[in-house]
């Protein structure tokens, strides 16, 4: 399945691994921060409403 990368297999695979890790981490942090911000805003809006 994996193509024959010859003597540069380590270089190619490490470039792909590093890039995928960075991209997945960026997306995960972005989505997590977004969820936290949404929840915080909802909470404040609810409290402001209940305070009148």
């Amino acid at each position, binding site marked *: 399945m994996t193509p024959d990368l010859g003597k540069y297999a380590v270089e190619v695979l490490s470039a792909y691994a*590093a890039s995928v890790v960075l991209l997945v981490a960026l997306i995960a942090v972005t989505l997590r921060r977004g969820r936290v911000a949404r929840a915080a805003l909802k909470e404040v809006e609810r409290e402001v409403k209940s305070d009148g």
Partner: protein
Amino acid sequence: MSIWQYANPVKFLSLSAKVQPVLWVAAGFCVVVGLIWGFFGTPDDFRQGSTVKIIYLHVPAALMAINAWFMMLITSLIWLVRRHHVSVLAAKAAAPVGMVMTVIALVTGAIWGQPMWGTWWAWDPRLTSFLILFLFYLGYIALWEAIEDPDTAADLTSILCLVGSVFAVLSRYAVQFWNQGLHQGTSVPVATGGRTVSDVFFYPLVMCMVGFGLLFLALVLYRTGTEIRLRRTAALRARAGGNV
């Protein structure tokens, strides 16, 4: 109907919510198909061997690293001239994405350079200008975090963005006007329409470039929405006098 209506956070969030699902799916499709195509479906280069497969990560990441800064430049200018908060929050949202793209370009470039050039790093004009661009991204993000008043932070980071644009331009055009250093010429010269990459490598590369572009857009829209919500939360807390 004017583009400036999207300076209204509510209208921006409404449009963003409609566009994002399409963007995420299209970005995921293009990135995954492009990388699989490039990794499994392309032959080795006669000189570079299998390291040519790194091009599908390096070139799109470098492209977005530079264009992210240009996007930040435009939105920062809009802030300085028209004082639209959504605009400067979009710049703030784009900075970490651009920084990660810069890191991917630097890391994959170093990994490719070691076997091809015999060195991880050289003080070549393009590599050096890219390193400085990375430092500008770090400085931009740090400046936002360091200043408490959001409007002052927006002003100062926008000015930093103008200064950093010099290095974004250098990163983009250094290979064209500096005939020195190790870095080869651009793979896809947009201005001339010519290219130095054969079709078998070019089409998956274009797929990856489109994918990285769409991913950047999806991430920036999502992150701008987050920044708007954080700003609104802080405003409501301040209005309630710290009771909330």
